[in-house]
């Protein structure tokens, strides 16, 4: 209960598909059972095709993500190139081990595509930088057991990227509460480990990374994924965010699941309250 790793809560998952990777996290920031914010992203981008997921103590999520922003910016200026996922993973490892006797309370996950071959790369770490290389999936955070279960049952080798998208969606939905339950876990008694909202990124190597066609790809991707939209969320920070990374660029943000706060929901009556909260302001 008092472990720094579980004070704020949060989960992240990364998985490999055929020539693609996906990484996802929830967006909740909590204090034990209390939800403080539903817009606290835990995935950070450090290059064309490098993503870092950070779960654990929220303050360290910010500190560590800022630290790597600094380190990767310095790397880019020094070497005049983007950092490769494998190189970045080793940087994460050595940076965390530097704090061996006063660690950051985070469990990082790295996902990306190797720039030279386009091969998918994922790995996880413990808080002092021991790397866990994986060919299939990596989970981390307070819902890691649940994510392990979902991944073990849903993951299969060589998923094309839309399949991977589906599987990731399944993994994320397990973390989300029932649509009609109240908004704060402490009121509903919803299990603490159900994380309301998530964000996901999916990567695939470039097909047409050439002039002009990137935008086309983005448009196609967003349109193709429109079918997965299942909730009423309409803002980037609402519902479950799924950013699809393909063509070594972010395809677009797709929102699935339910919106969380009343003001992101279109005017509607809730079952237990005859008077809609909006009428207060009429």
């Amino acid at each position, binding site marked *: 209960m008092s472990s720094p790793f579980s004070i704020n809560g949060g989960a992240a998952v990364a998985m490999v598909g055929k020539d693609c990777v996906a990484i996802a996290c929830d967006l909740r920031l909590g204090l034990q059972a209390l939800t403080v914010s539903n817009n606290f992203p835990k995935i950070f981008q450090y290059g064309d095709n490098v993503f870092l997921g950070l779960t654990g103590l929220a303050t360290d999520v910010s500190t560590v993500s800022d630290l790597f922003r600094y380190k990767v910016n310095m790397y880019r200026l020094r070497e005049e190139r983007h950092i490769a996922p494998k*190189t970045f993973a080793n940087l994460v490892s050595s940076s965390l081990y530097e704090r061996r006797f006063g660690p950051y309370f985070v469990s990082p996950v790295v996902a990306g595509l190797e*720039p030279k071959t386009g091969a998918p790369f994922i790995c996880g770490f413990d808080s002092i930088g021991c790397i866990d290389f994986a060919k299939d999936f990596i989970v981390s955070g307070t819902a890691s057991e649940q994510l392990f279960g979902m991944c073990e049952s849903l993951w299969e080798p060589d998923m094309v990227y839309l399949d991977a998208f589906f599987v990731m969606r399944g993994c994320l939905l397990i973390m989300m509460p029932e649509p009609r339950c109240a908004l704060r876990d402490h009121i509903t008694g919803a299990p603490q480990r159900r994380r309301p909202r998530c964000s996901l990124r999916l990567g695939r190597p470039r097909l047409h990374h050439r002039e002009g066609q990137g935008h086309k790809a983005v448009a196609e991707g967003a349109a193709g994924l429109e079918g997965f939209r299942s909730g009423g969320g309409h803002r980037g920070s609402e519902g479950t965010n799924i950013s699809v990374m393909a063509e070594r660029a972010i395809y677009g943000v797709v929102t699935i699941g339910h919106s969380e706060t009343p003001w992101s929901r279109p005017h509607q009556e809730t079952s237990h309250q005859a008077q809609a909260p909006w009428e207060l302001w009429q």
Partner: protein
Amino acid sequence: MADRYSFSLTTFSPSGKLVQIEYALNAVNQGVTALGIKATNGIVLATEKKSSSPLADPSSLSKISLITPNIGMVYSGMGPDYRVLVDRARKVSHTGYKRIYNEYPPTRILVQDVARVMQEATQSGGVRPYGVSLLVAGWDEGILPEDEEGGEQKEGEKGEEGEKKAGGKTGGILKGGPMLYQVDPSGSYFPWKATAIGKSATTAKTFLEKRYTEGLELEDAVHIALLTLKETIEGEMNGETIEIGIVGPPADHLLGVEGVEGAVGPRFRKLTPQEIEDYLTNL
């Protein structure tokens, strides 16, 4: 008191020169000639091994050094200063790179690190500049896909891809391939296709300008290196008196292990006296 007041010995003259650095360059220009030639598939570094006495054992003398498995170095100037720089280069390639990223530094990064060491000696208190110029040769892995060389630079130039040069890899952090740098006592550094440093640098460079062609293969480069050396050398040329280092294909026989999957041998290696003799007989 010495540690309290420590002034740099390299100070500006009224005319705006740093004469200590010019003196250091004089020391370099009295040194034994060393040269480097970049080919499409590798690099050759060559120099003469001069012993002061016929009693000296030349096999113990070594002027070309391996820094990382893919990077080697040769010098002209003061031997002891060079040894210090080799030590620093080997050390910084680990502390500043291998231990952080678990891979060896690209050539330019290592060159910058060594150049920084040399520059600091021109601005720090109580030290003198290093009396050497270096030739650093290395192979970069690159990060661009093999089939899309120059993709970053050639953006918007689609359709002209058929005009790619044969051999393709011309070095650098992005594309990968061979790189050859010269580092001077001031800490400045330059990339070269082919160059020479030391006593007969001017003669050697003139010769290289005549013999160098684009699309050179490593074997030809070794040949040209020996011909250039022959122009400037004072003593006899044989496997004992000539030293050659090459950056070429991975030398898996130097790994020391067999059957390890994914293990790649060093690209930098020094030619044995026997190999040099073989080249010389074909000259």
